[in-house]
């Protein structure tokens, strides 16, 4: 039961300023378009926020190929294509060292990097990915029983709450997913630990030690990286204390897809 509403609220309100600019080589007009500034929520995904960006920059791109699938918009930072299926907050943490706010992101319309990025033409793809992550998290937490008993309208409510930035609408359903079926908490803690931008670890980790005490973040890191003594992770732009219990972290600091996205600090 995620009942620390203050924390939840603070997490939900996280937004960062982004400056979108069009790739100078793709500019077709006489004059380069103005950069587009936008506040993007940490908890969301890029394809859900960038409609206006696309509309703004479309005008300045070569007109004929606008609707072709080859000319899908993709984002790049520091020469690296940004993976849209990772929440924006996780991306921020990944590139934390290089990012200065406002975050400068370059917008591209051509030469879509097929081998690195997945295609995302519409919001339905994002929705199915989001719901799939929720199901996966529920499999880890409750053997998948909670989500399978949910109705389609609950799924819809989760998605719409995220899409439209509605805290209460989202958490009305999500609190059920955050309920532990037993005193011990979730079965396993759903998390992803990013080592690099390409690689992340996902492992089965229980929230309790054998002796019944709750595990902390420290225990998790020890399990993942037994050799590193001073490992710590960043999430949501903060470095939580290593004493924080895993169960609490999972309930409160999970992203809307019910996963903890922890980025290893080297």
């Amino acid at each position: 039961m995620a009942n620390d509403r203050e924390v939840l609220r603070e997490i939900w309100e996280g937004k960062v300023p982004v400056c979108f600019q069009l790739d100078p080589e793709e500019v077709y007009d006489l004059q380069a378009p103005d950069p587009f500034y936008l506040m993007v929520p940490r908890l969301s995904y890029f394809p859900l926020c960038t409609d206006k960006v696309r509309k703004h920059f479309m005008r300045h791109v070569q007109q004929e190929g606008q609707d072709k699938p080859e000319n899908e918009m993709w984002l790049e930072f520091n020469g690296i294509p940004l993976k849209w299926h990772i929440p924006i907050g996780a991306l921020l943490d990944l590139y934390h060292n290089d990012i200065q706010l406002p975050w400068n992101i370059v917008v591209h319309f051509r030469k879509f990097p097929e081998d690195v990025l997945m295609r995302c033409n519409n919001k339905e793809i994002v929705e199915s990915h989001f719901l799939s992550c929720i199901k996966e998290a529920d499999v880890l937490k409750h053997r998948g029983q909670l989500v399978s008993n949910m109705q389609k309208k609950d799924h819809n409510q989760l998605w719409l709450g995220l899409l439209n930035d509605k805290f209460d609408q989202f958490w009305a359903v999500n609190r059920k997913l955050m309920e532990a079926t037993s005193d011990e908490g979730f079965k396993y803690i759903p998390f992803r630990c990013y080592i690099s931008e390409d690689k992340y670890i996902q492992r089965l980790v229980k929230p309790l030690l054998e002796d019944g005490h709750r595990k902390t973040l420290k225990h998790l890191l020890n399990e993942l990286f037994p050799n590193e003594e001073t490992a710590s992770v960043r999430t949501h732009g903060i470095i939580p204390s290593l004493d924080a219990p895993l169960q609490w972290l999972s309930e409160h600091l999970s992203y809307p897809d019910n996963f903890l996205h922890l980025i290893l600090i080297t």
Partner: protein
Amino acid sequence: MAVYEAGENSSWRLNIITQLRDRNKTQTHCYLDLISLHNRLFDNANTLRGENLQLSIANEKLRTEAASGVTGTGNNAALEAKLLAQADELTMLHRRRGEHTQQIVDLNNKLQEAMKELQLKESSLADKVDINNVLRAELTRYAAREKELENINQMLKDEHQALQLAFASLEEKLRKAQEENRQLVDRLIKYKSKDAEKMNEENDNFLNESFTSPTAFLMQTISKFGKRQAKMQKELEDAARDTRTASPDRGGTLEGTAPVIPSSLPTKIAMKFNAHEGEVNAVRWSPTDRILATGGADRKVKLWDIAKGSYECKGMLMGSNAGVMSVDFDSGGNYVLGASNDFASRVWTVADLRLREVMG
């Protein structure tokens, strides 16, 4: 569960919360207003740019219109041309419609005429059928009549034949009678000549007796003889003439062959009665009975039985439409024929007094 309650004073929780708050402060709040303002300005600029574009386009259009100097703008001209075309189409369609209605009217008229003709034909057909029927009826009637007439014809032929036979027999009788007559006349002539000779002898004797003047006597005797001779010749001629013109319907009444026979004219009326209301135009005796037929101006033919001084009306034969001028019996006395002024002749039977035939 208590183990999971995040106590207010857990250090890790405080740590996390402060970090979050700081984060939000630095990252979010500073930029929020700025960026929202920026976005607003951006949108305004975009809309203004769009309006500007539209206005410039309109401006260009007006300028080109003014420059070209046509009364209507290009658009208007095109619209007017379209309008003209549409109006033309409309008039054409109207005309066509008029033509079509005219065609409809004509066809209707033709239809009416055809119907009328049809009716006429039907009525004439009906008439013809009627006439046909009538003619058929007439035909049957004529056939019947023809049959009747044939029968009558046959009957008449039979009668004729019968009459012919009767006639033949009568002719035979006549011939015989004429033969007898001739013979009798011959005998008579013989007797007369004998008588004449005797007289001559007497005369001679007489003359011989009184012969004084031979020439006077001779002259007297010659003149007497001449007269007697002439008289004899004349009588002989008459008799001979009589035998030639003897006809059967004169009954057996031979008239005046002999000057010797004392003739008598009726002078005394045996009977007198009023036979008819008006004039009596015809009388006739029956050849067989003692019946008298009279025909009068009262259009009737009456039959009388005359018996020894009394008369009795045997019957009245009616049917004539005008006065009866002549009556006659047939040779058998069975039929009475009456001819009247109504241009018709009628035959009645004596026995039952019924009208048998109308002729004329």
